[in-house]
């Protein structure tokens, strides 16, 4: 039996610590108090060693699990043990490989190496059904459900109760799903179509779906990210109940105070490796954070003093029929304006509207004092406003096309004469940015899809710099990027600001916002919830504004 705890690698530097502790924080109303506690220095505690004997034997064990994607080693020898009647917290930075592990455990991906043991026996999953047969169920991070189908069917699809004749038993499905939803206190009618639910309600449906299969092992991948305080409480009650039934639970969350409440054991992932595991009571937040980050993170935010110049962009009264309303702000040369808010606050929509993807209903935009009318992305680019989108693979890069062609896609005019592309100029331009950003690629003709997330992001940012913009809008620029590239992207953004570019940076990560931004605008439910200066800004202020929970600050 593998021991429940592992030594922290020497690369983890104990003692030094900064605000970065909140890394990966998906903010929500309840996270205020622990957040500040995380931000205090706590000396490293020795990893919980003994006590293994008292624990029940693991129900599920993972040994040396590896999973590679083109350009990314998502998992690299992961070890994990889940025990019956206990909740194991899995923590790790964005991109550490947590969700990948979940997908392996649910049979969606097959591991490249390593073994899965259930009740001590080796098992391999041919597909999701096999995992279900092995009595594993999961709430996935993204709600992967069916818009056109009803809530009831979403819950029971794939394992619907049948009548004697083998037909789908609709009355039973409706009755049981109603009971399940009632059990988690979710006020949703089973006959509603999923497309008419809010994100939070969808999450509740996903939870109900996971609970609809009778299983021994329950995995929850950030189940609380989109839930309100009350819904989170309801979920915890469910978790306690499952625990009482002797199930083994894997609980993934970035919110330590939640983990404190439900978890018995912990495991920490960093860059696809297990860097620590043990009993929750033997560890404190700072140690967890240090294991997650694995180094001092002071230099992650290289934002130096940049000279903030004249006003470049002025947005006023900007509105959209359904997404946002009455947004006004200004942006100056060399300034980084952070935009903070909860997931779904409408920030991406605002950015996309500024960039000409969607039309606003009201409001004005002025660039360099001149009023702009942006009807298309081409207009925006011509005016000098560019946008690095949140969904890199969908909106940012053309994954199947080579690096060169991605790099010049926004400025084809600059590398062509009378519409004919000059191959030499194209390569020269691409190489210029590749070298400036220290791009890790085998060649410039390599498809962007084969690069790691961070390098993909460098290509996308390079694409926009090649158009020589005045304003760059970055939407979650470090989402899904490994820690090394993250620092590189931060350095890059700081550089750009120093060189006089005006930067609007949307981020859900408090440390990133706090570390990078000169000023922060907070959005809540499509409206401005305040603008704050860097000076003296605390995470509490931002979270309070983003959640509307102003009382909590006091």
């Amino acid at each position: 039996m593998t021991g429940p705890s592992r030594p922290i690698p020497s690369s983890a530097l104990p003692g030094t610590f900064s605000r970065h502790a909140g890394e990966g924080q998906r903010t929500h109303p309840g996270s205020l108090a622990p957040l500040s506690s995380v931000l205090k220095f706590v000396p490293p505690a020795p990893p919980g060693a003994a006590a293994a004997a008292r624990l029940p034997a693991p129900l599920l064990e993972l040994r040396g699990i590896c999973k590679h994607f083109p350009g990314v080693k998502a998992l690299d020898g992961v070890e994990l043990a889940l025990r019956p009647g206990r909740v194991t917290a899995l923590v790790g930075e964005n991109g550490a490989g947590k969700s990948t592990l979940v997908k392996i455990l649910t049979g969606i991906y097959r591991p490249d190496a390593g073994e899965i043991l259930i009740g001590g026996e080796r098992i391999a999953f041919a597909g999701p059904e096999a995992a279900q047969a092995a009595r594993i169920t999961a709430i996935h991070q993204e709600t992967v459900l069916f818009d056109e189908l009803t809530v009831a069917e979403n819950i029971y699809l794939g394992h619907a109760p049948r009548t004697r004749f083998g037909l789908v038993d609709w009355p039973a499905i409706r009755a049981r799903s109603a009971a399940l939803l009632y059990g988690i206190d979710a006020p949703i009618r089973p006959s509603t179509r999923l497309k008419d639910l809010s994100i939070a309600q969808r999450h509740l449906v996903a939870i109900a779906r996971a609970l609809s299969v009778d299983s021994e092992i329950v995995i929850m991948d950030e189940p609380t990210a989109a839930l309100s305080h009350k819904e989170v409480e309801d979920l915890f009650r469910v978790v306690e109940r499952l625990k009482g039934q002797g199930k083994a639970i894997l609980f993934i969350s970035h919110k330590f105070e939640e983990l404190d409440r439900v978890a018995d054991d912990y495991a920490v992932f960093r860059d696809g490796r297990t860097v620590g595991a043990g009993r929750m009571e033997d560890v404190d937040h700072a140690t967890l954070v240090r294991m997650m980050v694995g180094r001092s993170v002071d230099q992650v935010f290289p934002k130096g003093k940049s000279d903030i110049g004249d006003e470049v962009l002025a947005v006023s009264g900007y509105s959209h029929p359904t997404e946002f309303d009455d947004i006004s702000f200004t942006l100056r040369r060399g300034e980084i304006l952070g935009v903070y808010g909860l997931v779904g606050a409408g920030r991406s929509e605002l950015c996309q509207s500024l960039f000409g993807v969607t039309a606003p209903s009201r409001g004005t935009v002025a660039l360099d004092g001149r009023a702009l009318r942006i009807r298309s992305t081409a207009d925006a680019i011509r005016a000098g406003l560019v946008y690095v989108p949140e969904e890199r693979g969908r909106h940012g890069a053309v994954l199947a096309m080579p690096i060169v062609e991605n790099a010049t896609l926004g400025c084809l005019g600059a590398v062509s004469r009378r519409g004919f592309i000059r191959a030499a100029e194209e390569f020269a331009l691409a190489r210029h940015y590749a070298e400036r950003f220290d791009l890790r690629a085998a060649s410039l003709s390599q498809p962007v899809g084969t690069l790691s997330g961070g390098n993909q992001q460098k290509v996308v940012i390079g694409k926009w710099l090649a158009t020589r913009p005045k304003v760059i809008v970055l939407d979650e620029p470090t989402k899904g990027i490994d820690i090394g590239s993250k620092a590189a992207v931060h350095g890059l953004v700081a550089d750009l600001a120093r060189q006089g570019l005006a930067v609007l940076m949307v981020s859900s990560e408090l440390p990133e916002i706090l570390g990078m931004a000169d000023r922060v605008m907070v959005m809540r439910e499509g409206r401005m919830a305040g603008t704050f200066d860097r000076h003296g800004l605390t995470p509490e202020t931002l979270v309070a504004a983003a959640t509307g929970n102003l009382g909590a600050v006091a």
Partner: protein
Amino acid sequence: MTLEAASPARAAPEGAGPRTIPDRLVPPWRRFAASWEAMLLGVAATVFLIDALASPYFLDLWNLSDATFNFTEKAIIALAMAFVVMAGEIDLSVGGTVALASTAMGAAAAAGAGTPVLVLVGLGVGAACGLFNGLLVARLGLPSIMATVGTMSLYRGLSYVALGDGVYKDYPAGLAWFGQGYVWQMLSFEFASFLVLAVAAGVVLHRTTFGRAVRAIGNNAFAARFSGLRVERIKLLLFVATGLAAGLAAVMLTGRLGSTRPSIALGWELDVVTVVVLGGIDIQGGSGTVPGVVIAAIVLGLVTYGLGLLNVPGIIMSIVVGLMLIGTIALPILVRRALARRRTA
């Protein structure tokens, strides 16, 4: 355009100084050797050889020249269709467009128009049909496969409405040249036009910003729009171009037949799509080359002509073509999979 960038001088050793990234790892000729086009060329050569062995009449320049008439008009449409498919759309209305354009030419001829006017009418009606398709797809956002199934019936239907059981056949003698004339020796106007258009299409797709934009749209229309490309306008243009190509084909076909009936060019859409797909254009958009399409057109021409020389019924030819379509696409997939399996085993 020089490709000097591929010179070995650039491949600096790793680690020393600022990292340099080579332009490409695989030299262009090696890439070509492993490409779809190379495979098609091989197929073309094989078919040519088989034809030459099977029929004593095959290796005759006049015969080969005659053979081009069987596929040139469709191949011209395929050149334009390649762009549409490349951009992730499809146009199934080309046969109907040819019929309507030819009918319009017939009506114009009946009204006393001369050859130049007739050519303009054919091209114009073709372009108008393409424009309508383009508006449906790019402006109204309809799925092109369904929208053009509709316009396919609509265009041919209009030509039935106009012509009924009648026929237009009193075309000026000059028009025949477009379908039967020779530019130089055995080089027909049709085939010469095809060659010129093929070169033009190749240059546009592979050397211009427009071609790059089309490829980007086919790969990822969202990312293309987010990169400032005018996706709708480009798609509209591609449909117009396809309509125009169908119009040109209508001019040639009308010249070749010397008459118009509403059933003209029936079922061409499938032949054209077959050429495009066989040519290696990904039906889901984003990849493929013009040379591939050109070679595929010639391969299909050689196959059908060779079988024709042996008096094999046309439907047997279509079995061969159907099997070739599935086979040429399935084979590389299966081979790749088998290789991958052996590597992991």
